[in-house]
């Protein structure tokens, strides 16, 4: 029923390792992308002309940089950024280099996701905070981010799934994980069941991320519920 290749890959633990590598690369890249993208998103929102501290040139320059990276298809960005990866982590091959690529591609994406989540926060409650003399930093920490939390979590799930997709593409230039297994053992050696196994496993990982994220977002949302008095 299964090809010898699939059985061998499973018995040697290569598929299992692929699952782990995919999860690991996605998680690390998402985390670092948020470390960079979250502050950028906050700055984009705050300095916008509708924001709490409009600064035209910061918003404009940052917006241009973000748009620049976002408009390059990932597969091209990957190749173009090889020297950058080499500069940062010393190698242009393997998972370390892949994480650099994934972060470069994902951080601007995350920044826009964060920006749009923050934009959803009701302008009225921000004005209420301002009218009470609350400082801008406090508004960001105490009002903007907590108010946007459910939306930020949903955004993180979307980003994570996108990064997972990118990580599979990274197989083409030396990344590992389910993507690489699908390409080199499945596609190139004509074992469709290997490819489909990798697809199936990826779908399961995406489902888990999605369900978990939605559950957490719902849990943290104080605006919904049936407890209306």
């Amino acid at each position, binding site marked *: 029923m299964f090809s010898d290749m699939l059985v061998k890959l499973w018995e040697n633990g290569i598929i299992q390792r692929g699952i782990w590598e995919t999860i690991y690369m996605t998680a690390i890249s998402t985390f670092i992308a948020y470390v960079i993208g979250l502050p950028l998103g906050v700055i984009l929102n705050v300095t916008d002309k509708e924001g709490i501290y409009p600064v035209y040139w910061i918003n404009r320059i940052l917006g241009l940089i973000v748009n620049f990276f976002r408009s390059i298809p990932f597969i091209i960005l990957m190749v173009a950024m090889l020297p950058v990866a080499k500069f940062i982590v010393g190698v242009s091959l393997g998972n370390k280099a892949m994480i650099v690529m994934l972060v470069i591609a994902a951080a601007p994406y995350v920044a826009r996701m964060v920006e749009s989540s923050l934009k959803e926060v*009701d302008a009225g*409650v921000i004005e*209420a905070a301002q009218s*009470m*003399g609350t400082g801008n930093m406090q508004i960001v920490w105490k009002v903007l981010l907590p108010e946007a939390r459910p939306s930020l979590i949903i955004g993180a799930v979307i980003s994570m799934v996108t990064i997972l997709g990118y990580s599979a593409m990274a197989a083409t230039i030396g990344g590992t994980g389910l993507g690489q297994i699908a390409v080199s053992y499945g596609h190139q050696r004509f074992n469709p069941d290997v490819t489909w196994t990798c697809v199936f496993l990826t779908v399961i990982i995406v489902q888990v991320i999605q369900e978990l994220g939605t559950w957490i977002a719902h849990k943290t949302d*104080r605006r919904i*519920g049936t407890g209306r008095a």
Partner: protein
Amino acid sequence: MPETILEISHLRKLYDDLRVFEDLSLTVHEGEVIVIVGPSGCGKSTLLRCINALEDIQGGEIRLRGEPVSKENRNLQSIRQKIGMVFQNYELFPHMTVLDNIMLAPVKAQGRKKEEVREEALDLLKRVGLESKADSYPRQLSGGQKQRTAIVRALCMHPEILLFDEVTAALDPEMVREVLEVILDLANQGKTMLVVTHEMQFARAIADRVIFLDEGRICEEGTPDGFFDEPKTERARKFLNTFTFERKGAKN
């Protein structure tokens, strides 16, 4: 004459091409309750928002106890803390409990002790009959309860002046009264207030001075009895007439 708290002089406010105020001046004295009435679009809400620097102004000055209220003033934050504002749509923070809503600004912006603020907040909540709601979230409250919470939130900052912007306009009729009674109680305590409202009975009961705003100008001002019984201008008379109805068949 009691001390001047708020002084608006020659206020000019434009929205792009739309002129809201050309040259508006108003002085508010300590302990005074001023009710602002007027047709919709006359600038009532904009006036309150200007007083709190939520709107940019294009000319003139607003001073709170002599200090300019403007975005250029580095002390704007501390001045805003002295101006309490209650909004038509409550604007409570949905992700915070009632108590946290009230405590945020006193603790974070004013730097007061958490325990002290908490005690005061609970005491104020008790006075407006909401002590049991301290740990509820805004979505669990009725409109009237939300608005009373918003009033407590403003009060807890110890403001020198309170601004009420059509605070009952979004409420069901039976909830209007519970909110107005809280405001009436504050007036009796001698708080300085600027109240924008469409509740004419209430305006009459609470006001020391009524201001009739029309097309961005103070069209008429006077005592509540004077204004409501014998409006001096044709414009005000017309406006007040919109609140009374002739009996069915009275014309025949």
